[in-house]
């Protein structure tokens, strides 16, 4: 009883400076918030410029100063046949290499997480190294091999290298999903008489589907935007980033800004779809658990 007032006193003593601390804490939060907003504006500044200048009618070849507003380039984004072809190549390349990288990478991730085999640690490390290798080295070495093997560079070699540099990202993404998943479910399936393949198709694959979808979006985004590796292995084939880089010397036409903005919107759409799929899959899982 006698101790109570002391405790009360101590509490008020602590509360008083805490009140002042509250104000500084608030100021600190505001400061951090302001810094964050500025950092994000910095990230978006060139994107804003790129979108804005898709509505510009440049006076000369260089789309560098604001002249006048026009929707012309949005109405005819494919006017330049070379540009249109380069975008078509990029999208086709992204689709083909994503499908291949996701197939190879997903299987590899399953083997690395679910199965204990000799050399697993080494394989794990081996998958990690391409991500730690500078792109310029990846591109130059791949070209070196194609030269030695006498392979003509073109669309096929682009697919090969795009699959090569995206596999690791697919493995990492799918692995993360697998590690969060209970291995006993697969064991249960096998105990209940499912074959190895049935367990894979009916249990493992549906459970890791969200990770696989995310990996596909990531691989497609990496592929469609790649300049460095492609610059070595494209041969005569133009991709969208290669076209833009090539155009910098004579001035990048505003149609490029239009198509890049469309591509950004397309990827946003994919991300949105991915989110929708993830939610639907989560709902499905919940329903199944509730049903069981």
């Amino acid at each position, binding site marked *: 009883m006698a101790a109570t007032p002391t405790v009360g006193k101590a509490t008020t003593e602590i509360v008083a400076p805490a009140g002042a601390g509250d104000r500084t804490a608030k100021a600190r*939060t505001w400061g951090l*918030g302001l*810094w*964050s907003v500025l*950092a*994000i504006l*910095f*990230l*978006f*500044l*060139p*994107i804003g*410029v*790129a979108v804005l200048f898709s509505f510009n009618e440049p006076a000369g070849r260089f789309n*560098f100063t604001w002249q006048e507003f026009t929707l012309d380039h949005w109405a005819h984004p494919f006017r330049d046949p070379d540009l249109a072809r380069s975008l078509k190549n990029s999208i086709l390349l992204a689709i083909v290499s994503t499908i291949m990288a996701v197939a*190879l*990478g997903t*299987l*590899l991730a*399953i*083997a*690395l997480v679910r*199965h204990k*085999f000799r050399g697993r640690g080494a394989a794990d490390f*081996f*998958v990690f190294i*391409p991500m*730690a*290798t*500078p*792109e*310029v*080295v990846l591109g*130059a*070495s*791949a*070209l*070196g*091999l194609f030269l*030695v093997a006498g392979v003509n560079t073109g669309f096929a070699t682009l697919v*090969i290298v795009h*699959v*090569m540099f995206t*596999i690791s990202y697919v*493995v990492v993404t799918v692995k993360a999903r697998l590690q969060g998943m209970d291995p006993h479910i697969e064991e249960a399936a096998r105990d209940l008489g499912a074959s*190895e393949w049935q367990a894979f198709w009916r249990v493992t694959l549906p459970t890791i589907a969200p990770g696989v979808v995310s990996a596909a979006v990531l691989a497609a985004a990496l592929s469609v*935007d790649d*300049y*460095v590796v492609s*610059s*070595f292995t494209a041969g005569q084939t133009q991709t969208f*980033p290669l076209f*833009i*880089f090539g155009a*910098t010397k004579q001035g*990048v036409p505003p149609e490029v800004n239009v198509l890049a*903005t469309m*591509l*950004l919107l397309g990827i946003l759409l994919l*991300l949105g779809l991915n989110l929708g799929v993830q939610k639907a899959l989560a709902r499905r899982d919940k329903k199944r658990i509730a049903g069981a």
Partner: protein
Amino acid sequence: MRLKNRSRLIPWYFALPGLLWLLVFFLIPLLNQLNVSLLTGDPEAGYELTWAFSNYTDAIREYWPQIRRSLGYAGVATVIDLIIAFPLAYFIAYRAGKWKGFLLLMVVLPFFMSQVLRTVSWQLLLTDNGWIVERLRDVGLVSEKGRVLATSTAVIGGIAYNYLPFMVLPLYASLERLDRRLIEAATDLYASRAVAFRRVTVPLATPGIFAGSLLVFIPAAGDFINASLLGSSKQYMVGNVIQSNFLTVLDYPTAAALSFLLIGIILIGIAIYSALLGTKTLTEAAG
């Protein structure tokens, strides 16, 4: 017995296609490149293997400025990104509340617009008589005839811009994971906020700082888009030299030797950095 053998092979069915792809199109090219770096000859007469280790010393002698620049630019850009990203990641992890997901999306979103076009946009923003350069002249940061484009500032800035999200995400992940009760414990034990930050938050976020710095430094050291578009030949980095030697000059041995020198630079950078940071091994940071 047969069944047992079959199931022991299954991990290999799964792993083999992907591993083979990486073996044939990543590892073998790299080994081939090692071989190429020891050839002598010229584009007309052809090249032959003479174990010319002098290719390396020659490349260092001839391209020392570019090598030093790659290390310097990448190092400075990494520090700039750390300074920009730490408060941002801290805010997203602890203060953003319901905006957390949105802010993370905002950090990744710039990735989804063509990197080359974003760099072209910086070219436009920093152009000689543009708004930004005029304002910098007004406040005297740029001299009357001075430029921003074709300077190391522009190239370093471009690199820092390009790889900033790579710093934010691992920092965010490690701050998010951090047990905040430890910070509370420190302040309860009479550490000031600043001391708690320096002695508790930062050390616990070290894996994130390390991972983020690697993710920025590695691609930055090999970058050549920024030096090509925002710099001049006076800002060229190792990446530019590798590209021109491989695609224009056709001096394959020099380009190959420079590739391995670049990998060497990166390993040295990582070693210095981990020694400074006191991180014992790479795996520790990865975990």
